[in-house]
C-alpha cells in the first residue's frame, strides 16, 4: 500500500464541497493520497492520468457524457480534461466518475473502486485506508 498523505485543511474543505461520489470524504482523501499524494499538478508519465484523483481523458469523457453529480458549465470532454490540474475541477470530475464506476458495478463500492484504479486490491486498500483514518 502507498503511504497515506492526509489532505490539507483547504483540500479537505474542497472535498467536502465537491464530493459527488456518494461516498465518504475520507475515502476521497485516500484516493487523492494514492493517486497524487495531494499534488494538484500531478501527471502520470505512463498515462493521461492527471491531477489530485488521477483522472484520465476517458474518465473526463465519461463524466461529460454521463455524469450527473457535478455541473461543468456545459464543457465537453476535451475541455473538461484540460482543467484536470485545477483542484476543484479534478475533485468534482473524479468523484463524479467514481459514482459512475460504482453504478456500473451495480452499487458494489469495492468493485467500483477496483474499476477506477488498478484493479484488486485497489478497492480493498482504499476502503481500508478510509476506515483507518
Amino acid at each position: 500500500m502507498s503511504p497515506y498523505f492526509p489532505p490539507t485543511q483547504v483540500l479537505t474543505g474542497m472535498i467536502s464541497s465537491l464530493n459527488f461520489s456518494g461516498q465518504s470524504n475520507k475515502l476521497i482523501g485516500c484516493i487523492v493520497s494514492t493517486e497524487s499524494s495531494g499534488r494538484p499538478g500531478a501527471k502520470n508519465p505512463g498515462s493521461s492520468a492527471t491531477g489530485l484523483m488521477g483522472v484520465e481523458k476517458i474518465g473526463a469523457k465519461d463524466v461529460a457524457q454521463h455524469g450527473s453529480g457535478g455541473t461543468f458549465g456545459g464543457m465537453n470532454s476535451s475541455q473538461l480534461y484540460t482543467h484536470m490540474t485545477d483542484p476543484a475541477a479534478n475533485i468534482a470530475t473524479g468523484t463524479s466518475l467514481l459514482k459512475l464506476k460504482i453504478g456500473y458495478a451495480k452499487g458494489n463500492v469495492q468493485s467500483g473502486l477496483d474499476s477506477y484504479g488498478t484493479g484488486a486490491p485497489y478497492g480493498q486498500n482504499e476502503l481500508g485506508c478510509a476506515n483507518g483514518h
Partner: protein
Amino acid sequence: MFSHVLCAQEPDAHSIASLDFKVSPAGDCSVRVNGGETNPNGPPTQVLTISCQGKRLLSYPTQDALVDLFLNYPHDDRVFARWEGGSHVRFTIFRVSGNPSVGTVVFDKQLEGAPDVVNTPDVLLVHSGRRWLDGQAASLPTSTDVYRWTDGQYLLIESWRWKEAMRYEDRFCVLDVKTLSCPVTPLPLK
C-alpha cells in the same frame, strides 16, 4: 531494440481502430475495436475482435477505452492493446497461434502506467509505485517487474526496486543491470 508502434488503419464507420497483420500459419488476420453506447444504463463497453481468414477467433469486451493498438516486430504473433479507464492503464496482449488457429489473451493487467515493450529481449517492463520529485508534477516509478515471453506465456523473471538516484530514462537498464550500473536492488518475486 524497442517496439515498433504501427499506426492503426483508418477504422471503418463502425470501429474505433483496426489493424491488419499476418501470422503463420493463420495467414491474414485483423484486429478491430468497436465501441458502443448500446445500453444507456450500462457502462460504456468496447469490444476487440481478432479474425483470421475471415473467421472470428477472439472477442474481448472491456469497460475501458482503447488508447492504441500495435505490433512488436518481429514478434508478429501478438497484438498489444493499451486502454485507459478511471485512473489506470489496462494493458492487454493477444496471441494468435496453433493450427487450427486460436486467439488467446496472454497478458491482461490494470496498471499505474503503460509498460515498456521491448523486442530484444522479448520482455515487458511493468513499472509501479510513485516517487515524486520536488517541484515537479511527474513521478518516477519505485519498482519494475520484468516479464519475459517464454513458451507462449509471459513469466515474471525479475523484480527490482529503484534507488533514489533513478531517472525516468534509466528504466531500461534493468535489461543489463551489471553492465549499465543500474540503480536498483533486487526484490523477491511475488
